[in-house]
């Protein structure tokens, strides 16, 4: 392109805006001035910028002018109608006149529609003439549209749809902050909530709750453990969801002495109480206390965390000390109050409370967070965003492929377009058929893509049923369909614009004079090649992501546990303060339970543990004896589980050093701990940790804990986490614990055969106590890794699809260019070129594109892998195996796609080629 040639695309766009009779004047003047400016030494880049700017301003002026003209025209016609009808109100012909004049007003628009319709029919015919390429385009596009719609539905379900309650956008979660202490978000003590409620005017209501376990017994069934919420009586009013049966809570239900009540979830009502209406008034035992069922919530309702039962929150300010009992809080704004106003008001109330109660409220502020964002924080959601971006990449690759196909077909129609132009067809008229074709393809793809998305969303919904929150649902609803429609429009514009642009800029004179069959004047090259480079780059980046996720997945599923995970029974029990008021009672229960389990003939080993291996134990800051710590922040964090004697026997591992806990490690004896090998490595650097001491927290009141043993790694940190898993175990008999997991290995047979025995053993100790989360340790691990499996598979799928698409693209472009050069190849061969030379010629073209694409792609991949970093297990973000593998794969597949047309070219019979005029 010569230095003085103005940018073509902007000129083309401008030419669409300028009326035909002013084309030459306007474009000519502009080009002339551009040439002058360039001659005066305006740089190429600045010159082009200037040209673009001028084109934009000109287009705006002309389009505005046209719009004004048209509206004037329509306005005049309408005025005429008004006049006619005014004058001849009694004339029966009025309507005819009116429609006639309206028709005049519409005329402009209608002819345009007629043309488009004709082009659509024409486009359909021309597609039908070459069905194979049409089918390929539709398939490729539908995969792109289907995948991106699928991901869109997921992101929409997680972040945008929100709670299914009336006017959910008027709801907000409210938290407290303590910025001086780096606390960004904490739940709200009940006293503060009640003070807020008294003083605020911004909210229709403020409700609070906390979630917990509710053991239900009575009604002749086995005791059962439910997850429940302890709520302020107004919660359902704030959410505007009412029971379908019975009544909701009313103010007063939470007061001491009021009758104890409970509301059931729909499923619990159906399963445990047979779905009978007479469930109202039934008295059950909830956490050891008599409670009357007063209502049943609608199906699918489980606020906040898929609860089974709701109970009034009775830790009201008169019952607890200030600062105790923290709640999650949600408010519904009054009509006309904005979030900002409400936030301002609550902030000033909080300031007042600071003055009033400096001991508890010093530094406390408020913070509003939307429900969805609080449930799925951005950090976690990054993976969804990455995936949405990846599928948009896939869609872009699909688009590029189709644009390329259309481009290839366009070359065959240069002459047709030239004739149209020569006969006076406007630019619009000449390019429209290409948009029409792209539009047809996009519509076909949208229909097929919707089906693909539907299937994907259905199965994703089913797969995630287990672990997703109750209020999230994945479905193909109106927003998703709108997304499909929007995508189809973008696709048809994008895929149609390139060929249209190429056609429109081709020179009529040359095209008409050209004697070959209308293709040699066509500049397919640059654009097409750029598209392929883009495709290679995108698939490179995606494949690296896929590779990293695949490796993580393999690592997770291949985790060889250092302990026997496949033959272990687990179940959980929770003791309630009403029945087991103090640590002595609880401790006695646990000791009894373990000895009964151990003495059972079918149980080989049994133990109790606070956190199952692989499920992620809690973290805690500890101070090592002999170290100085400035601040609590400086304390090293470690994982902690609380276990009974015998744990290591159940898991079939032996300690590396020291001794196990014994029945003598009780409250009265000095505190002891067993640390894991990572703890030992991190803090004792090879030396023996036995006899060394540490304490939890940095307070001098905390007792020193002496290390008595070193255990191998038992996944204290969770199965899928890549972080440091240094941690320690404390004896159950020295710690007060309310919830505990039973872990047992059978003498023979499968682990789950123990279920009935364990349940019987527990009920022999306490008839009201249910066991829950009954599963094998293996199954627990599978559950934990399931998330990984699903997302890993999705990622791999995306990568493979993109790779396939860029393969198609590369092949398409090269084989097209080979076809165009058949005569040239024939001449070369006739003049003595060998097959090898021809192959090399074609290969070179492909290799350059692959090389450039890959360089860009690998750079992009580095960015992708950084974002994925948090989700990788046992593999580095810059894993050389993945990067190397992807590089080889892309080169290999790319060369293959190049080699196929090259081989064809080398086999050309010169006689045939030369005759193929």
């Amino acid at each position, binding site marked *: 392109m010569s230095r003085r040639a103005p940018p073509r695309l902007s000129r083309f766009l401008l030419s669409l805006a300028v009326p035909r009779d002013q084309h*030459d*004047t306007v474009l000519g003047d502009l080009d002339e001035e551009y*040439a002058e400016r360039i001659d005066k030494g305006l740089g190429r880049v600045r010159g082009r910028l200037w040209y673009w700017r001028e084109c934009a301003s000109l287009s705006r002026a002309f389009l505005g002018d046209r719009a004004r003209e048209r509206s004037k025209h329509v306005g005049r016609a309408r005025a005429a109608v008004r006049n006619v009808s005014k004058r001849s109100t009694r004339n029966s012909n009025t309507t005819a006149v009116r429609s006639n004049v309206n028709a005049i007003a519409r005329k402009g628009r209608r002819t345009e529609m007629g043309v488009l319709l004709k082009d659509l029919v024409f486009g359909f015919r021309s597609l039908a003439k070459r069905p194979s390429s049409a089918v390929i385009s539709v398939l490729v596009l539908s995969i792109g549209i289907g995948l991106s719609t699928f991901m869109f539905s997921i992101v929409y379900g997680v972040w945008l749809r929100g709670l299914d309650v009336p006017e959910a956008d008027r709801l907000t979660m409210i938290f407290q902050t303590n910025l001086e202490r780096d606390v960004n978000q904490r739940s709200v003590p009940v006293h503060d909530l009640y003070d807020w409620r008294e003083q605020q005017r911004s909210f229709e209501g403020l409700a609070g709750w906390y979630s917990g376990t509710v053991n239900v017994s009575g009604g002749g069934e086995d005791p059962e453990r439910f997850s429940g919420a302890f709520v302020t009586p107004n919660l359902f009013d704030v959410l505007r969801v009412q029971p379908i049966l019975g009544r909701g809570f009313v103010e007063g239900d939470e007061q001491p002495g009021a009758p104890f009540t409970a509301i059931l979830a729909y499923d619990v009502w159906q399963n445990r109480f047979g779905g009978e209406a007479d469930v109202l008034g039934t008295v059950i035992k909830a956490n050891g206390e008599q409670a009357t069922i007063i209502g049943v919530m609608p199906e699918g309702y489980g606020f906040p965390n898929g609860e089974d039962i709701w109970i009034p929150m009775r830790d009201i300010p008169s019952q607890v000390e200030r600062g105790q009992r923290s709640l999650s809080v949600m408010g519904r704004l009054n009509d006309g109050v904005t979030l900002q106003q409400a936030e301002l008001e609550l902030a000033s109330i909080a300031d007042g409370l600071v003055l009033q109660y400096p001991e508890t409220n010093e530094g406390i502020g408020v913070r509003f967070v939307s429900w969805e964002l609080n449930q799925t924080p951005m950090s976690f959601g990054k993976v969804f965003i990455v995936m949405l971006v990846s599928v948009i990449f896939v869609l872009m690759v699909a688009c590029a492929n189709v644009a390329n196909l259309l481009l290839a077909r366009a070359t065959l129609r240069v002459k047709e377009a030239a004739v149209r132009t020569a006969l006076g067809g406007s630019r619009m008229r000449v390019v429209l058929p290409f948009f029409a074709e792209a539009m047809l393809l996009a519509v076909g793809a949208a229909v097929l893509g919707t089906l693909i998305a539907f299937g994907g969303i259905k199965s994703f919904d089913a797969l995630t049923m287990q672990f997703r929150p109750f209020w999230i649902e994945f479905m193909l609803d109106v927003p998703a369909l709108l997304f499909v429609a929007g995508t189809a429009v973008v696709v048809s514009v994008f895929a149609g614009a390139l060929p249209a642009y190429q056609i429109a800029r081709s020179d009529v004179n040359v095209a008409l004079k050209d004697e070959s069959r209308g293709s040699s004047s066509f500049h397919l090259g640059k654009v097409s090649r750029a598209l392929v480079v883009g495709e290679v780059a995108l698939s490179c980046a995606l494949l690296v992501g896929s590779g990293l996720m695949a490796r993580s997945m393999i690592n997770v599923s291949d985790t060889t546990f250092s302990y026997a995970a496949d033959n272990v029974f687990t179940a959980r029990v929770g003791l309630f303060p009403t029945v087991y008021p103090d640590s002595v009672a609880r401790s006695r229960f646990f000791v009894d339970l373990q000895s009964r389990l151990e003495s059972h003939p079918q149980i080989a080993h049994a133990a109790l543990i606070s956190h199952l291996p692989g499920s992620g134990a809690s973290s805690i800051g500890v101070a090592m004896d002999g170290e100085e710590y400035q601040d609590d922040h400086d304390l090293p964090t470690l994982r902690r589980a609380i276990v009974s004697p015998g744990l290591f026997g159940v898991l079939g591992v032996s300690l590396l050093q020291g001794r196990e806990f014994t029945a003598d490690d009780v409250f009265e004896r000095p505190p002891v701990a067993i640390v894991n090998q990572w703890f030992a490595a991190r803090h004792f650097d090879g030396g023996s940790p036995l006899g060394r001491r540490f304490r939890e927290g940095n307070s001098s009141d905390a007792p020193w804990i002496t290390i008595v043993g070193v255990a191998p790694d038992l996944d204290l940190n969770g199965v899928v986490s890549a972080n440091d898993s240094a941690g320690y175990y404390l004896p159950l008999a020295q710690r007060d614990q309310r919830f505990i997991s039973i872990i047992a290995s059978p003498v023979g047979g499968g682990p789950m055969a123990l279920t009935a025995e364990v349940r019987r053993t527990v009920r022999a100790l306490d008839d009201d106590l249910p066991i829950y989360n009954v599963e094998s340790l293996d199954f627990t691990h599978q559950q934990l890794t399931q998330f990984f499996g699903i997302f890993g598979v999705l990622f791999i799928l995306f990568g493979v699809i993109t790779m396939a698409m860029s393969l198609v693209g590369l092949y398409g472009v090269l084989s097209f260019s080979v076809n165009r050069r058949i005569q040239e190849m024939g001449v070369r061969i006739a003049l003595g070129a060998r097959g090898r030379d021809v192959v090399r010629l074609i290969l070179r073209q492909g290799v350059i594109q692959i090389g450039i694409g890959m360089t860009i792609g690998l750079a992009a991949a580095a960015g992708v892998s950084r974002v994925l970093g948090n989700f990788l297990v046992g593999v580095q973000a810059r894993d050389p195996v993945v990067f190397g593998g992807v590089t080889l794969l892309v080169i290999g597949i790319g060369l293959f796609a190049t080699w196929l047309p090259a081989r064809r070219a080398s086999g050309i019979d010169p006689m045939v080629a030369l005759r193929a005029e």
Partner: protein
Amino acid sequence: MSALGELETLILLAILRLGETYGVPVRDEIYKRTGKRLTRGAIYTALARLEKKGYLDSTVGPPTPTRGGKSKRFYTVNEQGLEALRTSTRVVGQMRAGLEALFTDQ
């Protein structure tokens, strides 16, 4: 006959000054004399409008290579255009009568 807008008046005056001319010099002339930087689009649409109203005549010049083979359109103000200008300046003049003191340059 509709009244002339300010932009149209400016353009007619500029063409009168330049004689037979085309878009770019009109714009330059207005800029040179008034410091008003009009957009290209405004000039072209106004020229087309003025021609349609019958105030301007135009002829198409020969295409030149610097213009990419595009021809140039030259405009001249015709008698009707002149009349329209006279009318509109007269109207302004009549309204100004007696206020001259306000408009003399200081």
